[in-house]
C-alpha cells in the first residue's frame, strides 16, 4: 500500500486554524486541490493514495464521492471564514479523476466556484488517463469550466508502458491530446517518466518527440522512483527488475532538457517545461509556498504556515465528513525555521530562483557551477538542477 504520511500533531475535530495562520490568509493566493482516489487498476510503480474497486471495500463508493467532497468544501468555508480571495487555481489529481463522470467533476468544480469564487483567469486543471477519456467527456469538462488537462502518458514505447503496467498505447495517447485540443483546451500537458528499466535513450527521445509534435504547451518529466510497497519495488528487491540507475536518469534528464528547450518549452521548475504562458499556475503555487486546501482522502493542505493531511482511506474520510468533523489526520504548525527551510527547498526549484541567501553559502555553489546569480536571485544551472537536493542541503 502507499507510503505512510508523516507524523504530526493532533488536528482538532472542528479543523480550527490558529490565529497566526488565519491572519496570514490572503497574503498569498489561494488554490484548491481535489483528490480523486480511484483507479481502474493500480500501476506497478505507483504509491499514490488511490484505490481500485476491489481495494476500496465497503463504506465508500464512487457514486457518493462528489457529494462527500462537496461537504468538505462547505466545511472549508466554515474554517476559512467568509472573506477569502477567489481561487487562483484548481487542480483535480489522483488517482484517475476522469474515472468519475464528467458531471461529478463539474459538480465539485461548481461547488468550489459557488463557495469560494474563481478568479477571472483561474486555471482549472484535471489529470486524465488517455484510456479514460473520449471526445464527448473532454467536451463536457471544457464546458464545465476546465481550462487545462494533463495526460499521464508516462512513455510511448510498448515495452516501457508494459513495465510500468500502463494500459494505454501511443495511439490512444496521441488521440487523447488531439481530442482535448479539438474541444478547445488551450493548455494541454503530458507527464513522462524516464529511467524505467528497459527504456533506452532512444525510447525516451521518441516519447519526447511525440509530446513535442503533439503540440502540447507543457511537459512534466519525472525520474522513475522505485517505492517500497509497490509491485515494482518488490520486483527490484527480488532482483527480477534492475534498480534504475541515477546516471541513466541524469542522462535522460539532459536529453529532456535539451530537446524540450530547443522545441520552445523552457524549464520553469526542475521537472517541468512549458511554452511561455503554459506554466502550470497550480504547480507554481506549491513551489511558491502559497495557500491551498486539499480536498479528499490523503490530500495535503497548506494555509498560512499550517500544514495538514487528511485521513487516507476513502471510507474513513467519508465517516469524518458525514460526522461533520475535520477529515484531517494530523497537522503541523511550521516554525519560522521550518518555513525558511521550506522557502529554500521549494523556491530553489524554480527558474525564477531564490533571493535572500547569504553570500558565504551561495558563493561556493556558484563557483562549482551549481548556481547562477541572476540579479538578486540564485538560479540552478542544469548541473545544479540534477543535484538540487544536495544544493538545498548546502544552502540550509
Amino acid at each position: 500500500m502507499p507510503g505512510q504520511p508523516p507524523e504530526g500533531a493532533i488536528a482538532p475535530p472542528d479543523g480550527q486554524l490558529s490565529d497566526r495562520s488565519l491572519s496570514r490568509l490572503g497574503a498569498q493566493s489561494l488554490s484548491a486541490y481535489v483528490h480523486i482516489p480511484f483507479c481502474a487498476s493500480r500501476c506497478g510503480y505507483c504509491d499514490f493514495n488511490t484505490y481500485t474497486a476491489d481495494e476500496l471495500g465497503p463504506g465508500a463508493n464512487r457514486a457518493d464521492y462528489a457529494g462527500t467532497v462537496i461537504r468538505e468544501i462547505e466545511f472549508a468555508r466554515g474554517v476559512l471564514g467568509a472573506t477569502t480571495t477567489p481561487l487562483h487555481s484548481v487542480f483535480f489529481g489522483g488517482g484517475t479523476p476522469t474515472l468519475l463522470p464528467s458531471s461529478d467533476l463539474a459538480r465539485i468544480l461548481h461547488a468550489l466556484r459557488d463557495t469560494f469564487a474563481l478568479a477571472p483567469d483561474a486555471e482549472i486543471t484535471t489529470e486524465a488517463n488517455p484510456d479514460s477519456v473520449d471526445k464527448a467527456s473532454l467536451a463536457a469538462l471544457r464546458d464545465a469550466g476546465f481550462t487545462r488537462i494533463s495526460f499521464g502518458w508516462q512513455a510511448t514505447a510498448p515495452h516501457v508502458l508494459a513495465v510500468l503496467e500502463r494500459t494505454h498505447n501511443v495511439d490512444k495517447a496521441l488521440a487523447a491530446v488531439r481530442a482535448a485540443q479539438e474541444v478547445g483546451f488551450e493548455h494541454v500537458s503530458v507527464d513522462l517518466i524516464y529511467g524505467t528499466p528497459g527504456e533506452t535513450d532512444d525510447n525516451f527521445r521518441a516519447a519526447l518527440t511525440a509530446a513535442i509534435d503533439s503540440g502540447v504547451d507543457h511537459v512534466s518529466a519525472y525520474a522513475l522512483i522505485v517505492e517500497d510497497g509497490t509491485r515494482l519495488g518488490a520486483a527490484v528487491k527480488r532482483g527480477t527488475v534492475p534498480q534504475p540507475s541515477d546516471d541513466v536518469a541524469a542522462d535522460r534528464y539532459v536529453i529532456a532538457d535539451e530537446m524540450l528547450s530547443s522545441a520552445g518549452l523552457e524549464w520553469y521548475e526542475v521537472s517541468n517545461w512549458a511554452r511561455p504562458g503554459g506554466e502550470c499556475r497550480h504547480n507554481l503555487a506549491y513551489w511558491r509556498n502559497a495557500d491551498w486546501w486539499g480536498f479528499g482522502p490523503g490530500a495535503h493542505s497548506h494555509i498560512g504556515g499550517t500544514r495538514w493531511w487528511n485521513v487516507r482511506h476513502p471510507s474513513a474520510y467519508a465517516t469524518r465528513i458525514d460526522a461533520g468533523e475535520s477529515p484531517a489526520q494530523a497537522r503541523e504548525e511550521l516554525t519560522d525555521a521550518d518555513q525558511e527551510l521550506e522557502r529554500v527547498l521549494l523556491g530553489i526549484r524554480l527558474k525564477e530562483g531564490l533571493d535572500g541567501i547569504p553570500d558565504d553559502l551561495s558563493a561556493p555553489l556558484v563557483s562549482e557551477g551549481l548556481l547562477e546569480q541572476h540579479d538578486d536571485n540564485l538560479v540552478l544551472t542544469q548541473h545544479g538542477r540534477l543535484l538540487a537536493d544536495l544544493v538545498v542541503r548546502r544552502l540550509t
Partner: protein
Amino acid sequence: MSASAPGSTDPSLIRNFCIIAHIDHGKSTLADRMLQLTGVVEGRDMRAQYLDRMDIERERGITIKSQAVRLPYTAADGRTYILNLIDTPGHVDFTYEVSRSLAACEGAVLLVDAAQGIEAQTLANLYLALENDLQIIPVLNKIDLPFAQPEKYAAELAKIIGCSPDDVMRVSGKTGVGVAELLQATVDLIPPPVGDPDAPARALIFDSVYDTYRGVVTYVRVVDGHLNSRDRIQMMSTRTVHELLEVGVISPDPVPSKGLGVGEVGYLITGVKDVRQSRVGDTVTTLARPATQDLGGYRDPKPMVFAGLYPLDGSDYPELRDALDKLKLNDASLVYEPETSVALGFGFRCGFLGLLHMEIVRERLEREFNLDLISTAPNVVYRVRMDDNSEHIVTNPSEYPDGKVAEVFEPIVRSTVLAPTEFVGAIMELCQQRRGTMDGMDYISEDRVELRYTLPLAEIVFDFFDQLKSRTRGYASLDYEPNGEQAADLVKVDILLHGDPVDAFSAIVHRDKSYNYGVAMAAKLKELIPRQQFEVPIQAAIGARIIARENVRAIRKDVLAKCYGGDITRKRKLLEKQKEGKKRMKMVGRVEVPQEAFIAALSTSDTGAEAKKK
C-alpha cells in the same frame, strides 16, 4: 579445628592440581561435579559451571580468570585430604597465566573429550605441564556421549604421554561416572607439596582479580614459610609493601583464615585497587622476614596485538577512557594510550595479549559500559631500524617512519596445528601462503597429525584462524606462542582518498602481498564510499608509488523529482534526515565518508570476530 584447618594443614595431606582441557571439553562441568562430590556445594545450590563467574565466560564456555577452590576429600584410607583445584585459562592468549597456574601445582588432570580427541592448545599446555614436572593424570571425558571413541583416544593420549592406554581414566562430568575414582587418583598419584616451613615466607601469585567491594583479590600458593593474616607483605619484583587485611581460602566462597602454610593455596586481600600492584608470577614475602630469592619465572605481560579503539560517537571519548581505566584494574595485560586519527577522531591505541583478549576487552567495553566502538584492524609490533641506526617501535602502522629503512623486524610465533591427516595438504598450503616455515610433523595417532610451523604473528592476526577452520571443515585446532622476531621484507601500504591518506587504513604487509592488499582495499572502499560532487580517486600507495587505483565517480543526480501530492512535510523531513546523516560523516580531506564505511572496510581483516564465535 581439625588438622586440615587452613593455615595449619599438614602438607602431606595436600594435593595441588589443575585441569588442562580444551575450551568445550567439559572442564567446568567436571569441576562442578568435584565440588558436589566433596560436599563443598550442595546439589541444589549448584549453579551450572560454578567456577566461571563472568557472563562472557559463561557464554563463550571459556574461563578467562582462574580461581582456586579448596576441596576437603576423605580418601579410601579414611584420612581427609585437601585438594586444591586450580582453574586455568584455556586459551592461547593466556599462555603465561596458564604457566603460572601450572607452577602452583604438583599435578594436572589432562582432560580430553572422548568424542574429539586432544586439541592443539591442550597439547601445548600439556607440554608446559611436563616442563614443570607435573604428574599427569590422563582422563577422557564425556564417555556417555553416543559418539565417544574412548579406545581410540585412550591410545592417542597414551602415545603422547608415554603411558599405557589402561592408565587413561574415563569419566563423565555430566553423569558423574568415574569422578569419585578420579578424586581418589589425585590423592594416590599426585605428590604432596614440599617446602620449608621455617624458611622466610615465599608464595607464588598465580592470579589477581579486582573486586568492586574488596579491591584486588590475590591468589597465591605458599611454597615456603607461612603467611599470617596480620603480616605486612612485600612484592618481590617491585618491593612494594602492603598491609594484609585478610587471608583465606575459597571453598567455593571466600573463608577467612589465620594464615596459609606450606603447600596451601588461598587468597590475600590488601586493599590495593589495581591488579598491577599484585602481578601474576610475582613472589610474595613478608616485610618482617623477607626472602632473598624469588620463586622465578616472573614476566611483565607483553602485549602482542595492537588496535585502535574509537567511540562511534566522538562525545563518548571520556566514557571510553573511564571504562578502560576500570577494566585495567582487573587486567594487568591491557595497555592503552590516547591516539588521534584523522579519520576516526579521538580514541586509544590498545595493546592485547592476542586476538581473543582483544575481543574480550572490546566486548566488555560495549556490554558493561554501553559503548559503541569502532576498532581498526589489529596489528603486531614492528621494530624498524633506519639507515642512520636509529630505531622505532611501531604499534600503529600510520606511525611507520618515513625515510631510509634499513631493516624491519616482526614478531614470530611457534605454532602447532592438530588435524585429521586428510587436511595436511590444505594446512601446509595455508601455512606456506602465510610465510610459514615448517618445523616438524608427527602422527599422534593413525589418523591425526601434529604440524609445527614458525609463522609471522601478523599472518596469524590476519584471519589465519578463519582460514584454517574453513579449510579443515572446522577440525583443525591451533596453538601458538611467541618465539622472538625475524627480519622481513615489509612495507607500509597507505590508502589515499582524493590524495589524502586515511590513517585508519594503513597497513604493514609483506612486499609480495602489498599489491593484493592495495587492490582489495581499494575495490572494497569503492563500494563503500558514496559518490561525491567530484570524482574521488582511491589509491593504494607504498611511499610515493601508487600500486592500485579505483575511482568513485562524481554523483550526477541528487534530486527528488516528485512532490508527492503536496506532501511538503515529507520532503522537509527527508531533507532534515539527510542533513542529520551528513553530520555523522567523517571528513577525509574534502571527502565525506560515512562511519559505516569505516566499520565495513575495517572488518575485512577483523579476525577477532572468529574468536567470538568459538
